[in-house]
Structure formats: structure tokens, C-alpha cells
């Protein structure tokens, strides 16, 4: 057990190192941060002075080692664009993205699971067919296009919902939340739907498929034969067995949620990590970009680790394999 765990942590560290080098290398070449600092009207002399003070004229490997040494001590440098420590910039933005992701996860689970169960239990009803058609549309609709359409109808035409931002926020400790104000909740509606639509459709289809399969399984038929009531069978036995794979998939989908948050946040000017990312790309804000990728890599290494450990605990065969390996 311990050896398995150490192995995985070690592999995780290698992953992080590789990611850090890639991130550093690529974004080092994406553009020139000098513009952000010196401005378009600067002189060549002034630019040379800044280039030197930034250490950008040092050999690449040295720059990387320098960078690595700093991040080990928790320093990601100062954002070229914002002049604030990168760690703080990222921590400031994280709540917005986390709340958006949570809101869209809630939508996904409530609507996706609900609709999935309904369509599995009533495969022939007209409502089910309608739901399936909508889900097909949802899985085929590019989220940015949906966002654009929603702003057009609900903000510009109808004036119902705010087109940008998070509304007013309430600070709880260091965390600014939009869940506790009316305008905060209103502001969350369109971005979270935009982000969730694909996931809702996917989860719904997954739940439906799993549920149909489980309903045909031996133990359900056995339960029916024993005369247990249908509701109890559906909820206790069928749903329970359906949810395990669903939760795994939803967990794994966190990555694409963050990825697509980049687009959603850009469309709705949602001040989270995704917007930070696109704005940082545009401004060639190297420290933020590098830290951002490291942050995401860390999140995923941890998720992978947890999943591996869960499987290890659930599936006894893996334990045997691990001992042999």
C-alpha cells in the first residue's frame, strides 16, 4: 500500500516537473513581456535595461532553474500585467471559477440525473423523446455560440439577466461569494447554463444508458420478483448502482469544465481563472501563465492520485498486481 502510494506521488512529481518545463518553455516564446513593461513608445535603450533586469537575456536553462527554485518556495513572481504577486492573483480569481464550476455541476447533476432517470423509466413517453431531442441539441451546440445567443435574447432584448460580471458579492472570510445575493445569483444563471449544457446532455445520456442496463440486471428482476415496490427498486437499487460510474465521469470531466470555462468566462466577462488566462495570453503575462498551468497540473495530478487510490481500495485485484510489481 505505502509503496503503491509513494510510486504514484513520485510519478506525480515527474508529471509536474515536465509540465513546468513545458509551460515555461512555451510561454517564454509566445511573445515579449517587454512591451507590457516598457510600453509601445519605449526606446531601444530602455528596453535593453529592462530585459537585463528581468533576466531575460540569461540562457534558457538558467531561467528555468531560476523559475523552478522560486516556485518550490511558493513564489511565482509578479504578474507583468497587473503588478501583483501571481499567487495572490490566482487565489483572488479562483473563487469566481470555482463558484461557476459548482453552479454548473449542480445544474448538471440535478437536471442531468433527473432527466436521465425519467427517460430511463419512461422510455416511450413523449416527454422522454422531447428530452432526448433537447439533449442531442445540447451536445451539438458549441457553448460559445449558446452564450452569444443567450446574451442577445436575455440581456439585450428582454433585459432580464446581466450580460457580464458576477453582480454584487458578499465576503465570507477571504472568499467573495455571489451565492448569497440576488444579483449574484442572477449573474450566475447564463454563464453556468452555458458551461453546463454539454455536461447536462452527457450526464443525462450516461445515466439513462446505465439505468436501462441496470434495470435489466438480474438483481433488479429478482427484487421485482420478491414483490418490492417499484419506487423503492428504482431509487434504492437501480439508481445507487447507476451513480458510481456517473460520479467518476463527472469528476473526470472537471478538466474540460475548466477548459471550457476559458471560453464561457470570456464571453460573459466572468472574472475568474479562465478570463485571467485569455487576458494573460494576450498580454504575454508569462508568470501568470506558467503558474496557471502549474496550478491546473497540480489539480489534475491530485485528482488522478485520488482516483487511483479509490480504485486501489475498491478493486482487490489491483492490490495483488501492485504487490507483484
Amino acid at each position: 500500500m505505502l509503496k503503491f502510494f509513494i510510486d504514484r506521488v513520485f510519478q506525480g512529481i515527474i508529471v509536474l516537473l515536465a509540465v513546468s518545463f513545458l509551460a515555461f518553455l512555451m510561454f517564454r516564446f509566445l511573445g515579449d513581456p517587454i512591451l507590457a513593461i516598457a510600453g509601445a513608445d519605449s526606446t531601444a535603450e530602455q528596453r535593453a535595461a529592462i530585459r537585463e533586469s528581468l533576466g531575460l537575456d540569461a540562457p534558457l536553462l538558467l531561467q528555468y532553474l531560476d523559475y523552478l527554485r522560486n516556485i518550490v518556495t511558493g513564489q511565482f513572481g509578479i504578474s507583468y500585467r497587473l503588478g501583483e504577486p501571481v499567487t495572490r492573483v490566482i487565489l483572488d480569481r479562483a473563487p469566481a471559477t470555482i463558484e461557476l464550476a459548482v453552479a454548473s455541476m449542480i445544474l448538471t447533476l440535478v437536471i442531468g440525473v433527473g432527466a436521465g432517470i425519467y427517460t430511463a423509466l419512461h422510455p416511450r413517453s413523449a416527454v422522454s423523446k422531447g428530452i432526448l431531442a433537447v439533449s442531442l441539441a445540447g451536445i451539438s451546440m458549441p457553448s460559445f455560440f449558446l452564450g452569444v445567443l443567450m446574451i442577445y435574447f436575455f440581456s439585450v432584448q428582454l433585459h432580464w439577466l446581466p450580460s457580464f460580471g458576477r453582480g454584487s458579492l458578499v465576503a465570507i472570510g477571504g472568499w467573495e461569494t455571489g451565492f448569497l445575493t440576488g444579483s449574484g445569483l442572477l449573474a450566475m444563471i447564463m454563464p453556468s447554463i452555458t458551461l453546463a449544457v454539454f455536461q447536462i446532455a452527457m450526464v443525462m445520456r450516461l445515466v439513462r444508458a446505465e439505468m436501462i442496463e441496470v434495470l435489466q440486471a438480474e438483481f433488479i428482476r429478482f427484487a421485482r420478483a420478491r414483490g418490492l415496490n417499484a419506487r423503492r427498486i428504482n431509487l434504492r437499487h437501480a439508481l445507487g448502482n447507476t451513480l458510481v460510474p456517473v460520479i467518476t465521469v463527472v469528476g473526470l470531466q472537471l478538466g474540460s469544465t475548466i477548459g471550457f470555462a476559458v471560453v464561457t468566462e470570456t464571453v460573459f466577462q466572468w472574472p475568474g481563472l479562465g478570463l485571467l488566462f485569455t487576458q494573460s495570453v494576450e498580454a504575454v503575462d508569462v508568470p501568470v501563465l506558467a503558474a496557471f498551468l502549474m496550478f491546473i497540473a497540480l489539480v489534475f495530478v491530485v485528482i488522478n492520485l485520488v482516483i487511483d487510490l479509490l480504485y486501489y481500495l475498491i478493486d482487490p485485484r489491483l492490490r495483488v498486481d501492485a504487490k507483484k510489481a
Partner: protein
Amino acid sequence: MKSNTRKFLTSTLLAAGLAASPLLSGDAMAKTLRIGAQADAGTMDPQAQNIMTTITLLSMIYDSLVSRDGEMQPQPRLATSWEQVEPTRWRFVLREGVTFHDGADFTAEDVAFTIERAQQPTSQFLSMAAGLKTEIVDDYTIDIITPERDIFLPSRMISLAIMDKDWAEANGSLAPQNLGEGEESFSALNANGTGPYKLISRVPDSKTVLEATGEYWGEMAGDIDTVEFYPLSNDPTRVAALLSNEVDLLIDVPAQDVARLEAAPGIKTEMVDEYRTLFIGFDHASDTLKYGDAGGKNPFKDPKVRQAISHAIDRQAIKRTVMRGLANPTTQMLAPKNVGYVEELDTLIPYDREKAKELLAEAGYPDGFSVTFDCPNNRYINDEQVCRTLVTMLAQIGIEADLNAMPRAQYFPKLWERDTSMFLMGINSPFADGIYNLEKYTMTRNDETGDGIYNYTQSDYPELNARVEDARRTEDEAERVKKIEDLYRYLTEEQFYVGLYNQVLVYAMQENVSAPVRPDNWLEIRWVTMDE
């Protein structure tokens, strides 16, 4: 019935939103102006970023010695008067009784400190302060010594926001932030000026809130109590925010949306001809085209090719389609109302496709040639669409231009390296005087003197240099203007640069807001008023 339901729903939603809003707890009569802009101010440090949005926002908090009126003429602000006591010495008399927000008095020391601070390598206002020396005469009189005779010094002072020396020293902000040192800068996040507003809160990229101090030393036409500033980089989102009354004033209006905003109920627009001329530049120096194929030659060395390109461009069509009327076509590189402007040069090279083909054939390129056209995609109004249109127009006389559009973070470093064969640029003289464009954009590059520092054509014409130098040194104003006019005539005939159009600047606002637009795109908050 339907609209009633909608109204009911809207008002319920609004009530739900507002009831919980902490903003409402303040004075209900207070006038709050919500401004939407394309980008955020990058910093609160007044010398760190020479970008109009940042300057606009900081000028609400800080004052400078000199300001501009609606016609761009210098006006007293923290200085009450100034005169050129010697050719290289200007004397400024300062306003007495002005205090910074932290209570400290404003004195000549602060002026000397600010100029010195603007000369640090991390300052983006070096070009306004380079070579200046100061001598404090007394607490409220200061001499500024220029390296040469400089008639533009008062104009240079417009963009230097005065900081309190003691405040900067106490907070370790002697220079604009050095990002490379990994240090935090107090002045990048905090502000202490003499201006009418103080910084209340700031979430970069999201929202900045300013509040009137109520103790401003000057008279102000404006009556805004609270300013909320929202960066909204996505064009449709920004326009939607104004249409749905989530902001009161847009200072970056996408050209294509102006007509719709004008037609929208409750919204009005203000326009002014901006002092910014868009033009195409070329590599004048290389023997063979660096990016492109013209049979081993560089066609742009030949004035006929540049003239041909100019004749091929239907500027009225650009104005009508891409720019939606928000452009004044020109074939020169100076905007109206600038010193040295000659109106007839705007139409010197008319749209004439046949003439263009003839000139191209005369120059030895009857079948045209190919070239890469570098273009920014987030610097000027609709820059990428303008470039796409130019590519189409050039295709029609046989020149195959490959569009290479990129964000400014990549575009400017490329130009700095003079790594381009053909490019799109915008030009404006900070002093509304044509000599500036001539010095910086047409003289041979000289990093010592600063001449030709924005001349990305790599041109080296000694005779042109001498003529500009001569105009610059001419003391008699009428004669100086004449020389500048002659130079522009010469450059336009040669099509040294191919002028395209002067931008028209638009602000859009709710009907109860009155916000005048100035040709330099600097929103002067001291003029903004709002009806109840």
C-alpha cells in the same frame, strides 16, 4: 398581457437583486457613473503605463501641472502660469493651498520628484521627461531646464501626474514598479493624489471604484459622486452592457455598433475627430523583399509602387463598410487641426484602379508581386478587418498580400526589430504639431537623439533628415509652419507612408449622462455630469 408579465418578472428579479445589494445602503441621491471600457487600467502607478485607459482613470485621482481644454489647448491646473524665461528654461508658478488626499501640502518638491521619477527606466513616460532638469526657486515656483529649446514643454507636463514625494518615499515607491525584481509596489495598488476622486476599491480586470473626496481644490463642472469602472474586453458583451443599462458610459465603442446605439431608445453618442491617422508603412531599405516575392527586388523602394498601392485603395469603401462612417479618408500622415496640416493633401492620391495598374507596370511589376502584410488585431478600431479589406483591394491590382494579423504583444516587438516588409500603423502627435511625426517617423533612426525611433521603414534619406532638422530649428513660427507643410506635401507626393484615414472617436452613454469627447481619447471626468 405578455409585456406585463415580462415587466413583473423584471421588476421582481431586480428587486430581488437590489434588496441584497450592499451598494444601496449608501446615499440614495449619490450619482454613480458606471464606465465600461475595453481594457482595465494596468496599474494605479501614474508613471508605469502610458495607455489612455490608465491615464484616464488615474487623472481622476491625480492632477498634473497642465491640462487640456476641449480644443486641446494647454490650460493651467496645478500650475497657475508658465513662461519660457530662457530658450532652454521654463518657469512654472504653482498653485498654493492644494493638498494630497493624505493631507500633505503640494509643493515644488513634489514636481521635481515626479519628473525624476518619470525618468526611471521602468517609467513609460520617459519620452515626456527625458533630459529634463529641475531647479526649485521657492515652494511654489520651479524652473524646468530642457536640453534644447523646447516649445512643447508645457504639453509634455500634461501627462505627468504629480505624486507626493514624502508619500512615495515612505512607501518605497521611488520608481515605477520593477516587475523583474519580483517586488510588490505600493504605488501600483494604492493612490494618493490631489485630484477630485480617491480610490475606494479595486479588483483588477473586474471593477474599480472611486469616490469624490468632496474637498477638491478646483472648480468642477462635473457632478459625479462615485465612479465605477468596468473592463469589458468582449465587444458584444460591452455593447450589451450599455443596452441593458448595466453601465452608463462606454468609452470604447465598436464602430459597427454605433448606428444601433444611436437608434436605441435612451442612449446617445458623442463623436469627435480623433488625432490619429492610420497608414501603411513599408520597408524602404532592403534590397530584396524580406517577406514576399518580387523577383529578388524590393518594390517598395520605388515611389511608383507606393503610389500604385495608394491609388488602389478605395478609402471611401473602407469608411462606409468596415469603419461605418467613423473615418475621414486621407492620403497623408497628419490629422486635421495639427500644426502643418494641409487639407488638399487628404485627397492628393485619389482612388483609381487603372492608374494604379499603370504605375505598377511602369515600375516593372505588370503582374504584381506578393508580400506579407503585418497587422495588429487588438490595437486600433477594427484593425484586422481594415487589413482584410486592404488585402482584397490590393489583390485587385495584382498584389498578393498575405495577411499576418497578431495581437499587439507580438506585433510591436516585431516592429521594434524592424522585422517587417509592410505594416499597418496609427500615428498621433501628442503636441498636435506635425513636426513630431516627421521627427519620429521619417528621420533616420538615431537612438541617441530619439529621432526616427518609430521609423520602422529603416529609411535613410539624408536630405529629408536635413529638411526636418531645419524645420525643427526654425524659430519664426510662420516660417516653421511653412516648412512643415512643404515637408508633408513632399512626403505625400512620394507616398513615403500610404495614409488611409483619421479615426473618429465615439462615446456612447445613457441619455442622462453628459460626457464630452476630446480628440486625444482622454475622458475628462471633471466635465462629466449626470441628470437624476
